[in-house]
């Protein structure tokens, strides 16, 4: 076991150059990685792990939802039948198309075609905004107008189904609200990626953030694909 003898507190600097980054193949990488490709793979692994934590986050909500529905099924289903099936289904189509556009962008950036990437991501962004407009501009507005907010004193359903229906709308508002928040974050991220694409940050060799944000964007879709049947379909069965 060798004890490396360097006097504590001594500050030896090899030469005057930026200290934190090594350089290889023209792409920067942090100094703890051996090369950019290794760092890129690691970043993507981190993103997947982050999405796993999101699964647990939404998982807790969805588990509670299913458990509570089990307890007061008639009320939940009565509430679910008042949801806007047309808007929900349209939104589902919009989101899937949006992810498709983003995935197309990933294919183009892998080929180094930055012009088409920007177009694809702009399409994904526009579809995301359309989703939010339909969901919150139209659907939530109608829901509030129909007194469907769970603590609304003039909640439309009465009798034995009331408590269950109110609970359904608790989960409806929390689930769609949290999903909407994730959409907003996603939209901010996509804007950031588009700006960086325009600035010429990405190339065939380096485009890790494009892929990482794409994973997130698709994940938010998958959350919706779980919420959609819970909100619009199960109660109508």
């Amino acid at each position, binding site marked *: 076991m060798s004890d490396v003898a360097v006097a*504590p507190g001594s*500050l030896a600097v090899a030469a005057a150059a930026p200290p934190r980054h090594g350089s290889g193949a023209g792409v920067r990488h942090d100094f*703890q990685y051996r090369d950019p490709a290794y760092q890129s793979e690691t970043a993507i692994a*981190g993103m997947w792990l982050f999405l796993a*934590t999101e699964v647990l986050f939404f998982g807790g909500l969805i588990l509670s939802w299913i458990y*509570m529905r089990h307890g007061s099924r008639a009320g939940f289903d009565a509430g679910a039948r008042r949801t806007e099936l047309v808007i929900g289904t349209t939104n589902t189509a919009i989101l899937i198309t949006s992810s498709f556009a983003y995935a197309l962008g990933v294919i183009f950036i892998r080929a180094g075609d930055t012009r088409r990437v920007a177009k694809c991501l702009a399409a994904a962004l526009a579809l995301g905004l359309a989703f939010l407009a339909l969901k919150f501009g139209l659907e939530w507005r109608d829901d509030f107008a129909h007194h469907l907010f*769970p*603590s609304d004193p003039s909640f439309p359903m009465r009798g034995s189904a009331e408590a269950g229906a*109110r609970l359904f709308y608790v989960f409806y508002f929390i689930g769609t609200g949290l999903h909407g928040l994730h959409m907003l974050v996603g939209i901010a991220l996509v804007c950031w990626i588009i700006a960086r694409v325009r600035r010429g940050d990405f190339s065939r060799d380096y485009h890790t953030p494009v892929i990482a944000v794409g994973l997130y964007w698709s994940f938010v879709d998958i959350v919706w694909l779980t919420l959609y049947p819970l909100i619009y379909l199960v109660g109508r069965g």
Partner: protein
Amino acid sequence: MMAGEGPVSAQRPVTVEAGEVTGSYLADGHTLKSWLLTTDHKRIALLYMAAITAFFFIGGSAAALVRLNLVVPEGLLGSSEAYNRLFTAHGVIMVWFFLVPAVPVTLGNFVIPLMLGARDLAFPRLNLFSWYLFMVGGAITLWALFVGGVDTGWTFYTPLSTSYSKSHVVLAAVGIFISGFSSIATGLNFIVTIHRLRAPGLTWYRMPVFLWSLYSLSVLLVLATPVLAITLLLVLLERLFHIGVFDPAFGGDPLLFQHLFWFYSHPAVYMMILPGFGVVSEIIPAFAHKRIFGYKFLVWASVAIGVISFFVWGHHMFVAGTSLYSAVLFSILSYLVAVPSAIKVFNWLGTLHKGYIRFDAPMLYALGFIGLFTIGGVTGLWLAALAADVHLTQTYFVVAHFHYIMVGGMVSAYFGGLHYWWPKITGRLYPEMWARAAALIMFLGFNLTFFPQFILGYLGMPRRYATYAPEFQVLNVLSSAGSTILAAAYLLPLCYLVWSLLYGERAPANPWGASGLEWRTPSPPPTVNFIETPVVTEDPYEYPPPVAAEPHV
């Protein structure tokens, strides 16, 4: 997970390039900015250490007031309201702002890359961000506790927390919610780092047990904390908008809250103790100067504890009206988690057997850990037994049980690790005699504080009351007296460790003659950790054969 013995090497060597700082990380910038905007894991560990220390003493002060109140049966403070807020403050601060983060974010943050032969964690900026999240969450929670406090206990049981409590539940829960994301970021960073930044030759079975423990802990952080986040969010929304998820008045189900809460909070118990296991597994072989006994059993016991801990939460709800069948199942599973814990204890004892034992301060803490953790663990079995639990639950027996694990176990391990790695972290040796004295006083003070509580609980004194029946006074006074000794013992390291920063002897690279990559670089390490990335060619705890002993006749 790859666990083979093959020549798996995550990394090829990284060498120092022109312009990289090769001096001590402590000398790499002296401005406030060089600390507050650092991405160096070693500096972030020190930022965390400052915060954790502050939280420890704030939470400890609340406990001191709790013990003060209990000196007389009618309660010295004279107010149940104030008492409720005090023990809630103590629980909230200690659980979320000391016990869960303490070892991982300070010692873990500092040592993980060194043990891996890496230059930093995988995501250094995320590491810094997690510290800021922790500070924002901590500040909000402290604010809530100082402007009036919370009276629900650290468990936030519904419907008290959502409908009836008139205290600052929302603020405190927001603070905990935010700091939870700090835990998630830390766990994520550790997992990815251990997978991706191992030095050449450092296979999974060549990793020190500390890394395995922190890996297992990180999986718990990453998988359980998001469930706490959604649970707290539901509590907040229910409280703010008067909508029901948990309150039966709105059609909700309070048991659902307990299930969700303990799905996080029981694994959280293992989040607190697993890093302690890791620290002790480093200290024991170093001071017994002997290879660790049963390495593979130790590492797989860490993994097993992590896995089983997800399936025992129901033992918190035996008397909450859950079905008998689920109670039986959770009881069996809770017994099961004792098996890997016992494996660890026996392996440490096996390591000590015929070792060349030195009783330096870290070793005293580690030995204290083994004894106190064992008592805490065995009394846990009483509580896992359905019939005994009916009598013991909600009494001081439970309080004593988990303090033996949390304080006797985890806090001992934290202090043990702090002393063990102090020379590496600061480049200074601490005063050994003072440290040994503190370790012994801590052990005595701890037992005097908490052993009487086992008896109190067995005799039926309920927890969380500001007053008690007069026949319990003698044991309560003993316990409170012990807590003053404990408080003094905690202040000692604060004094002599700070003293050692200025006047301590300079530490060599490997003051303990310990194995492990972290001892192969100078103390304190350079910013890049290793001037040349080490290549690992041997198993962990490769201690030189002990000096030839006299043959037994």
